[in-house]
């Protein structure tokens, strides 16, 4: 895989998702090239997670198509993962009562073939595959810094480590593209920085990353390209600098001031409201 940023890993074109009369995602195009980190931002309810779910086959898009490395993806989550797209979830969805190592081993599911019969017979092939899976899983735990806790139940890990474990589990399926849904939600600044480094390290392994995040500092540090979704539509896409300065993006996040109304009051109100709800819209600025 080349990292010159030319070959598209993910190509979503005209993705539309309707739930009855509600259009959650409208005609969104997005490409992710290999070796790239792309950010997806937008206010709450903009349709970012819905778009993610369309990419990973949890939802079947009403219109549009999603292709991975040139082949159109089937609308089944497990086939999408098999093709090479792995994801994490906004609200952590680990297998709570399995150990850390077992969680990662489940991630290996698509890359191993042993069925029930070979599990019952336990031939040399089975043992070899199990051993290789365990080695690979331990490598990933080393990579994410969880190796010491391999035997712990995943539900007993602290929050930040649960996030890391979810990433390790996703990486176990040997993806070409990793989708991260708010990987730093609820993290403190140190943990956010550690997550940033982890994502760079993943990119350096040749895995393209598409990340949803509310933490603007994090996203503008991290991403090569940022797309902003507002009310289900892609408002703007470009380098962090372009998106950061785009007035429509600022307006979407902070609202447009009324004609003649003192804008400063409006702004203060919004900021106060955001500060009051750090758990849903966690920003490192609040924590600091």
């Amino acid at each position, binding site marked *: 895989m080349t990292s010159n940023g030319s070959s598209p890993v993910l190509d979503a074109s005209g993705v539309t998702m309707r739930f009855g009369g509600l259009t959650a995602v409208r005609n969104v195009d997005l490409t992710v090239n290999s070796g790239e980190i792309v950010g997806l931002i937008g206010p709450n309810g903009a349709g970012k997670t819905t778009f993610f779910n369309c990419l990973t086959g949890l939802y079947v898009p009403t219109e549009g198509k999603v292709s991975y490395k040139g082949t159109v993806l089937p609308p089944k*989550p497990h086939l999408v993962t098999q093709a090479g797209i792995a994801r994490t979830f906004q609200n952590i969805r680990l297998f709570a009562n399995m150990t850390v190592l077992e969680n990662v081993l489940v991630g290996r*599911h698509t890359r191993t073939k042993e069925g029930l019969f070979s599990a019952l017979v336990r031939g040399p092939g089975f043992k070899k595959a199990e051993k290789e899976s365990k080695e690979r899983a331990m490598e990933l735990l080393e990579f994410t810094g969880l190796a010491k806790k391999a035997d712990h139940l995943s539900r007993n890990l602290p929050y930040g480590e649960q996030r890391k474990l979810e990433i390790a589990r996703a990486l176990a399926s040997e993806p070409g593209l990793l989708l991260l849904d708010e990987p730093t939600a609820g993290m403190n600044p140190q943990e956010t920085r550690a997550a940033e480094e982890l994502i760079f390290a993943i990119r350096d392994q040749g895995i393209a990353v598409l990340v949803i995040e509310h933490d603007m500092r994090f996203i503008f540090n991290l991403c090569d390209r940022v797309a902003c979704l507002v009310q289900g539509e892609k408002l703007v896409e470009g380098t962090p600098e372009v998106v950061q300065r785009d007035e429509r993006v600022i307006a979407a996040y902070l609202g447009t001031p009324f004609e003649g109304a003192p804008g400063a009051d409006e702004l203060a109100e919004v900021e106060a409201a955001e500060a009051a709800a750090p758990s849903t819209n966690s920003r490192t600025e609040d924590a600091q």
Partner: protein
Amino acid sequence: MATITKNPAPSNDATPGPLVKLPAPGARLATIAGSAVALAGTFMAWTWTSEFPGDLTVTGYPAGLQVLVLIGAALTLLFALSGQGIRGLGWLTPGGANAATRLTALGTLGTIGYTMGAIAAELGGVVNLEPGAWITGIGALIAAVAALALPFDQPYPADDSDPGAWARFRHSLTAPAAPRVSSKLPSWAEILIIVAGFALALIVFTYGIGTEGAEPFIGFLITVGFCFTGANRAGVVSRLTALTHKHRNVALTAAFAAALCFPLTQDNDYFALIGTNILIFATVALGLNVVVGLAGLLDLGYVAFLGVGAYTAALVSGTSSSVFDVQFPFWAAVLTGAGASLVFGVVIGAPTLRLRGDYLAIVTLGFGEIFRITVNNLNGKAGPDVTNGSQGITQIPDVVLFGWDLGQPLDIAGFTLGRNANYFLLMLFFTVIVVTVFRRSGESRIGRAWVAIREDETAATAMGINGFRVKLIAFALGATLAGLAGAVQAHVSYSVTPDSYKFASTAPPNSAFLLAAVILGGMGTVSGPLIGGALLFLIPAKLSFMENYQLLAFGLALIILMRFRPEGIIADRRKQLEFHDTGQLDVPEQRLPPEGGVSATKAGA
């Protein structure tokens, strides 16, 4: 003992103390003395007539319930002496002696109390009690009261400063987890301990089966319940479990050998039949454990798969009441039965397993009833004549394996194995197969996928697991294992009738009991359903006097167990951590607030 004062609520004490106020050395001495008196009393006559089950009239030789009280009192004595610091007994109580002493003392008191009550009620008045019973009773009472005065094994949690008597009583029965020590014993000694442990389990099990009448069995349950909990609190059980984990193959072999010895210990072939039925029931429960415990699919009609296997094997067994005039050899009959169950499992599972939630429970419940009613109607009148309707298929011939007719008694090395003992050994073979299948499938890629589906189906499919396919494999495997057991069951019981495959009835096997055996015993474990199955088979068989109240008592027992031990009798490590959050080694230190608090609630959302 007049100095003992009950003190229900210490108001000015800083730390809550035991229920009964008494200096600890005195309490321990009183416990030792009391249990010694109770022990001595078991050698005397308890009543004058042998009408009471177990014949408690002989002086100098304990029998029936006396043996149980004797064991309870002896254990109390041992635990109390170990708490006293007697050299050589420390290994008994690595987790703390006091809670264990309390539990065994209460168990002893419970058994003797129950015995005295039963004698008085059955023979008409306390006048039927001989002095021996009174001596034991008073001894056990002294021991129990004094044991309640022993200090707590672990300090009372500081946040509850003024707890009520009930809270302190419950706390007094808890003990800290035994410290993990690297054993200094040579491995042959460890193996010997494992073997002794299984031999003990075999003896306890055999004793339970051999109890005649309801009274000794109730006494047996009380004693075993309290003593096992006591040994658990003392830390002996966890020590033994650690050893069995270390020498896993030895432990499995020992368990197998103990089961193999069971028919040799029975001179009565009827008890061997009970053993065989327990084995069938427990094996089916273990098969259900694949479906419920591993894959998390609620199957309410599982007994129908047992029925499919049994009916199929019966139809091809060559009996004159079968419409098919064929006689398959046994191995082929078993494979046909298992195959038929597999087909039914796939047919039932394929349309329903695509859905999530409770649909499967409803469909399987329906299937269980449809199977029974259909088999009832295939009688030549309401439908084609296949199964003889409610008459069932009878006169199923005995199994002949390699020229060995299992119906004939077999003489091996001086032991005579009756028909049922032969079938016990045959069924044991299938149990070993099912245990192997359960363990091997559980610890593999497919087993992890089952657990992942159970934990979070969305995340599991996002990890590339084909949920439908994996669930269907679990469902079909469970059905096949039940069919295997059903084929043997048809031969053991000579006949198959539709009424033995109900959803719920007072006698196992039925779907409700199978599910209860899995949940009571411990989901996801091997030994859990085996023990749960044995208990759920024995209790209705022994307590037949309860008749119509059996299901009521059964429901009550389930509720109580779920309240106090939700993970089941045998907890797998995951479940233990799941239901009891505190005091576990695996619980990590808390992160710093306030982010930790926020994120914790988010993670739970």
